[in-house]
């Protein structure tokens, strides 16, 4: 396996390309894409890639980019795209449509602050704005996590038990533009890992059908229940995929979440994306100092793994959630989900910290401060703003 020093975008572009190419003997690969900082490098990579079957269709907007992916997927192609921030906002109508059509499209979301005011740096508010869309959502911490998760996303999304689109997120710039070493998956191994993409309800001339027509309330409710059931099957399908991944690639990616030093922990911190890596360094150093600190790296956000959180937290008294996102009038979005997950554990205090919003630099020092704050706190309060940018 080739270990390369590349940017997160290049790693994502490579993985989408080899996954698309793996479908060359079936119905190929289609990418409808529109550039936006910091995602553009992915599109450039795919545009330069010579697919045996399939291509990038340049369009005039993100809305059309997703429309192309839906068309490609309805024709049976493995369909991929990438976007960020206001591009995702503009795409939103078709993001929902792709999910409700049950099309296993894979999209890379390079997290970037939604404007205005204009800001190109990382903030998860863009992909989390789509939390109520019928999409799987995964958050990745490093280049390797990103590459592995993209491959898993194809497997889960295209599984006949699931048939839902999947979004894989990474931090804008901090991951997308940082050069790091990564094992880039080789075509041969990906061919083995990814079966041909089969969209059972694809449009066929020999069997004409209409999809997306008018439905009555009862039929609509049934449609939603089916999606909910599919979401509920994700942990099982993901676990299967991880086992097979390990067999083929020789390493075992995280699944729904990664619980580290949680068994005996007095306090647990929860983080996602690259912040989880910086947190890991902090947790390890405090463990070495004898403090009973644990962490959960949140990876799968949709479906939200409530049971996995419940069991990872166990009887731990204090949980601190690091949210690089903000739902105005409420607080951090991961925090809301975690509080819901721990609704049956009244002895656990959950405190939210809003940190690194708008691309603020999250340093180990800031995370140490948060750990100290959490330890000293006996009662949770409203989400605490860590104004990183003003330091």
């Amino acid at each position, binding site marked *: 396996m080739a270990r390369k020093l590349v940017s997160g975008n290049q790693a994502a572009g490579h993985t989408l390309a080899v996954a698309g190419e793996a479908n060359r003997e079936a119905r190929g690969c289609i990418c409808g894409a529109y550039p936006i900082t910091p995602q553009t490098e992915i599109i450039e990579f795919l545009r330069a890639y010579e697919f045996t079957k399939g291509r990038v269709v340049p369009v005039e907007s993100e809305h059309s980019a997703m429309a192309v992916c839906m068309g490609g997927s309805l024709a049976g192609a493995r369909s991929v795209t990438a976007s960020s921030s206001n591009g995702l906002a503009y795409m939103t109508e078709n993001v929902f449509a792709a999910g409700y059509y049950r099309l296993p499209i894979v999209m890379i979301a390079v997290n970037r602050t939604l404007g205005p005011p204009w800001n190109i740096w990382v903030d998860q508010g863009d992909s989390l704005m789509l939390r109520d869309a019928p999409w799987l959502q995964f958050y990745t911490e490093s280049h390797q996590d990103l590459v592995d998760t993209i491959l898993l996303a194809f497997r889960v999304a295209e599984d006949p038990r699931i048939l839902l689109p999947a979004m894989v997120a990474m931090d804008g710039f*901090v991951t997308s533009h940082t050069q790091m070493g990564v094992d880039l998956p080789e075509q041969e191994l990906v061919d083995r890992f990814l079966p041909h993409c089969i969209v059972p309800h694809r449009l066929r001339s020999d069997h004409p059908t209409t999809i997306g027509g008018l439905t009555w309330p009862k039929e609509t409710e049934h449609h939603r229940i089916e999606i909910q059931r599919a979401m509920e099957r994700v942990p099982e399908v993901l676990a299967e995929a991880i086992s097979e991944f390990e067999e083929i690639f020789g390493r075992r990616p995280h699944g729904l979440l990664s619980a580290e030093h949680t068994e005996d922990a007095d306090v647990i911190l929860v983080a996602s994306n690259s912040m989880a890596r910086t947190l890991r360094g902090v947790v390890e150093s405090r463990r070495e100092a004898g403090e009973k600190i644990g962490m959960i790296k949140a990876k799968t956000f949709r479906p939200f793994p409530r049971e996995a959180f419940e069991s990872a937290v166990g009887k731990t008294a204090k949980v601190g959630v690091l949210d690089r996102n903000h739902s105005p009038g409420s607080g951090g979005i991961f925090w809301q989900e975690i509080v819901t997950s721990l609704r049956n554990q009244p002895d656990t205090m959950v405190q939210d910290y809003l940190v690194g919003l708008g691309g603020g630099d999250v340093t180990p020092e800031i995370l140490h401060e948060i750990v100290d704050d959490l330890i000293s706190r006996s009662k949770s309060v409203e989400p605490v703003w860590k104004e990183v940018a003003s330091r």
Partner: protein
Amino acid sequence: MTEVTICGRGGQGGVTLAKLIATSYFLQGKDVQAFGVYAAERSGAPLQAFVRIDDEEITNHNQIKCPDHVIVLDRTLISPGIAVGAKSSGWIVLNTPQAPEDFAELFPGRQVATVDATSLAVSHKLGTRSVPIVNTTMLGAIGEVFGITLEEIEASLAELRFGEPNVTSARQAFQQVRKVKLSGHVTEIPTPQVRQKIAGLLDEDQGLPPKIKTGSWATQQPERRQLTPPCNDGCPAGNDVRAFVEAVGKKNYSRALEILLETSPLPGVCGRVCPAPCMEACNRSELDESVNIRDLERYAAEHGEWPVATTPWRSERIAVIGSGPAGLSAAYQLAKQGYRVTIFEAGKQLGGVMRTGIPAYRLPPDILDYEISHILDHGVEAITGCKIDRKKLLELSHEFAALFVGTGLQNIRTADLGTEANDAVQEGIEFLDRARLGEERCDDERVIVVGGGNTAMDASRTAQRLGAKSVRVIYRRTRDDMPAISEEIAEALEEGVIIEELVSPIRITPMGSGVGLLCQRMRLGEPDESGRPRPIPETTDDAFFEMPCDRVILALGQSHDLSILPEGAELKDGDTLVGLFGAPIFSGGDFAGNDGTVSAAIGSGHKAALHIHQTLSGDTGTPSTTNPVAEPNVIHMNLFNCSVQAKPVEIPMNKRRSSFAETKLGLRDLPGVSQAAMEAQRCFNCGTCNSCNRCMDYCPEGIVYKEGGEYRFDYSYCKGCGLCSTQCPRGVIYMSEL
């Protein structure tokens, strides 16, 4: 873990350098990170890039505040600030031609390495001269300092597909880098705690401009200049063409006339007969058609209010010999300087060749009369019918304080066509003068005119008007080589004149009721001293032929008659004659060898007048500076709409051939529309700011402003984007490299 901060400017390749450094360690099996600070990556803006290197897995992703090493890619960024937070055990690697010891005061106690990467990059043509790309070169120096081998450096360059000359440049930097541990104690500068106050929506002090002096990003800056418009440069009379055209464009015709009268007393004449080198030079002809400057000058003379003449206030008297355009111009300029001028003219009327040589259909005599009378109004005395010879000239030199000789070309060049039919041969100048006085008719004659100058054209067109049956012009070269104004040639052809090219006359003999002109065919050879092809006689049998006709008019040109001058006197345009005891004698116009146009004579007379004034008053005036000419390539023609040149109204062809009425009637206004003003507004104003404000409108930073009517640039915020320069239609704003 080792951490490195790179300080550079956008465009220098700082982020790529981070990746190059990271790659050289990555290839050794280390865990690495390379990243930049994004968003301000505009060319020239200060930016930072970072590298992390460790044997263990690197977990944190924040920006580097306390680096082990600091690398500075740009000399202008070297300041104590770059060492803030940096560990004293590491290196500061600087791109500078200076020695490390030179930084003893700036970085005491630090380990400093220097290399002149910019010169190396420029010598290897990496990037451009103004923005050399120094990253690959710096890698060599950094490698030496960090203990990376040359092989590892080359492997890193190869991994990122950098070949020659990057490798050579890096290798040279590796060898040339100088390293020193400076004496003294490291000044620990604590990382400043910036507590920036961020304005809220309802705060009163919000909206203050940020104090980021973006001018430091610039690699070039706009400057303003004044260029000489090509029309001004091309005007032999020295008219400020651009300025008078601008005044016409503003419908201020009196101001336009005033500008013209500064340099020329004969705008109505030049507005009709000038060959208009200004229009040939006009940059607008590169876009569509030149501005019709000649007709605008005529329009200004016709529509402007003529100013009240001054009266002489000096005691010195000056004699002007000859009243052609040079003499009149000299007299006018001297009178305006307050001198008492007396003109001596051999003919019966003033005006010289303008009266005798230019037919009324081109220059009506009343126009000439009016402009001469305006000159005389300045207290100029005129004595006509008074021929000045050498003896008389010497007498005058004792009566007057200075003399100006502008007697033009009095010797007529002729040709020997034999004596057999002499009566049918006539000189062109004489023919034109007799025609003017109503003493000639050519009814039903076959006329041949010999020559290719303006006199030949005037004689042929005059013969047409005097009833000739046919008029042929024979010329020994081709039409393209004719010295006559091309428009006059075209008008002669329009009026039915026939031009026979490459024909030379030999002899005239009686033939039937008229005469026969024996001619010889010519061909063109190598250019002669005039720059035109030399005509060479053909010698074959059919080279000779006879043209039947009734009259042959010779228009072969004239030369000056130097017999008026004292013996041994040398002629210099506008300059004084030497070796005399009396008043200084100056000369000008065709007499002094000018090119035969009215405008050149006006300029020559003006120059002589200035010289006379300087000689008499000792006032040398202030030396004028000449700006470079605005070439077409500095004009942004894409900012102008194409338009058609306004043409003068002409009388119909059928009325032309029988009348000496003026052929062209000038620009004619339509109700409510001044054609002249519209035509004048076509002017580009080459190289001269006319306050169009485009620079202010287009500056994306809003740093172009006006102060006391003058445009200014706020260089502290100007990023040097160059939009003002590309949007300046007339080439006034240009970008100078810093």
